[in-house]
């Protein structure tokens, strides 16, 4: 346990002192989230929030608890303690379907695509367009295909055909398809888990461009990335986790790359949240 006791306890609940409250209420807010897997305390009293029209990056070293937090947000498993607040109302999610129903879309690091299905089917998985009639409603393949083509064009995704099975696509193409999914679905919060990990320069650029477009659309975007370049390129705020604990949330415009790295590694100990000056332009970054 490197420097296990170095960092300070979670910062005090003193946000109100610093902040002129954000102009927009958070879409999603997590408070005091803890999660334990057997002997491993994956998360301890973590908080997190995202507002409409902003990109929040979630960073941390390996084992910081990012993936666990993402899985809690997307309803894969419930937290042991803590509360999840969606649009001002406390909520409990019993499974991924609940998160989807709220309007949270997740693009996973391990992609979560069905290899045997084609691109169209994967883009619309769980949200197929079709006639009424519940599960026996007829699919409208033409509508789905047209929307798929238009969204993939917008993202300049290069694939042989939208009717290609995912199994026949390259890693980069799969990532692009996975990312395109959240564009199709009118979600209020979009989580992207390492969206650029397997992409070339061109496609990375396209995905970051897509992230900005989602934000300008008024959605709350959460991006997890090891690549700080990407983080600084798109994020408005950056939340740092370390060893399952909340370190702080920083304005991407004011925090430096070096500072961020030291928060992530624990070299810079125990930072509370850095207060942000209320933006003159009335931007939404205030914390």
């Amino acid at each position: 346990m490197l420097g296990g006791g170095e960092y300070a306890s979670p910062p005090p609940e003193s946000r109100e002192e610093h902040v002129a409250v954000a102009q927009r209420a958070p879409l999603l807010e997590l408070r005091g989230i803890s999660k334990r897997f057997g002997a491993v305390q994956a998360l301890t009293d973590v908080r997190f929030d995202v507002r409409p029209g902003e990109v929040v990056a979630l960073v941390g070293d390996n084992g910081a608890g990012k993936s666990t937090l993402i899985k809690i947000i997307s309803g894969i498993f419930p937290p042991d303690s803590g509360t999840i607040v969606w649009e001002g109302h406390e909520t409990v999610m019993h499974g991924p379907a609940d998160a989807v129903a709220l309007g949270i879309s997740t693009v996973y690091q391990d992609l979560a695509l069905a290899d045997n299905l084609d691109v169209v089917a994967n883009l619309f998985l769980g949200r197929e367009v079709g006639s009424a009639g519940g599960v026996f409603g007829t699919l409208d393949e033409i509508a789905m295909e047209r929307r798929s083509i238009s969204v993939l064009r917008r993202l300049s995704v290069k694939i042989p055909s939208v009717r290609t099975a995912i199994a026949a696509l390259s890693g980069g193409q799969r990532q692009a398809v996975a990312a395109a999914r959240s564009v199709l679905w009118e979600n209020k919060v979009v989580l992207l888990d390492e969206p650029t990990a397997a992409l070339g320069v061109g496609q990375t650029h396209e995905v970051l461009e897509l992230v900005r477009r989602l934000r300008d659309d008024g959605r709350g975007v959460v991006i997890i990335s090891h690549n700080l370049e990407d983080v600084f390129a798109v994020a408005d705020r950056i939340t740092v986790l370390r060893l399952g604990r909340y370190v702080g949330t920083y304005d991407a415009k004011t925090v430096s790359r070096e500072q961020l790295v030291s928060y992530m590694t624990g070299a810079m100990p125990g930072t509370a949240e850095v207060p942000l000056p209320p933006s003159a332009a009335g931007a939404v970054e205030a914390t």
Partner: protein
Amino acid sequence: MLDDPRVVAGGQGLRGTLATYRTRWAQGDIGQLPVVIGLVVIWLVFYIASGGTFVSPFNLVNLALQMAAVGTIAVGVVFVLLLGEIDLTVGIVSGLCAGVMAVLNVKMGMPGPLAVVAAVVSGILIGLVQGLWITRFRIPSFVVTLAGLIGWQGALLYVLGSTGTINLRDPFITSLAGTFFTGWVAVGLGVLFVGYLVGLSYFLRRRRLAAGLGAEPMSALLIRSALIALFVAGGIFALDQDRGLPLSLVFLVGIILVMDHIAKRTRFGRMVFAVGGNREAARRAGIPVQRVRIAVFALASTLAAWGGVLAASRLLAVNQSAGSGDVLLNAIAAAVIGGTSLFGGRGTVWAALLGILVIQSISNGMDLLSLDSSVKFMITGAVLLVAVTIDAIARRGRELAGA
């Protein structure tokens, strides 16, 4: 071409269609071509070996009758395999449900139609129980249905009691396999069937073109339609020379059309494929994975029950060995030979029809040649092995193509 995400990658016209097929085969999506070729070979061999008896109208009607029951069961097996699961009880459940029907009708005097309904309902219940058990306790379907295979066998013996064999005389029940359509009725059914298939392709093509999407060329559609029409017309003509088109075959084809629609064109079907392809992805997409699995096991048992009813109707009896022996093996073999992957997520409902045609042709042909059942079993086993090997090789090709 590559940056244009449109449907037909191969180009225009017939050449383009052929090119698209070539690409798909190269990617391991071989479809049903090997089975069709295999079937043609099998028919040729038996045609020659039997001196023509194999394709006589009398024998073709027999073949159709033999196919109906196990073919129906195989449709359910296809769905279970699509999930990447297995159901070892479909054979014995067909026997048990037929036994329930026979006892209710013959021993307890329940009217035929009601007894049939009771048999099918028993199938639904058995499937629900097994599906719930598999999902609730997270036990592999292989183990749960293995227990079921043994347990339901006992239930069948219990239901039949000391009688052993129950003979069926109810006119409704015996009419299920004993009714044949001849003349214009048979032709009309054939026209309906071909019209449905061709119309479906035609309207799909028109809607796609209207929506500005690529579609299969008219020439390919016409050739395919002509082949289907020719095959159906030939079949009905041949059957009409003898007793006619069996009602039980009409049932089988009807079930296949409905189930194919469900598999390919409904949300439920999409869910089944998604769960079979990547269960975790399906779960994360909000698909109720456990409920889908339970529903599929219920469906398989239901179709097994109906298959059992048809088999009993043809044999005019239910006995202690109903649904045992090679019923289960043939049903699974039919689904697999037809091109349904054992690894889940790939296959079509038509696979059941093609597969049962292969299995039953072999069995029927070897009976005609009065081959020993030892030879029959070995040859059927070899055909199954070849079919699965082709699937495995295709799968490897697909992985290479995807890498």
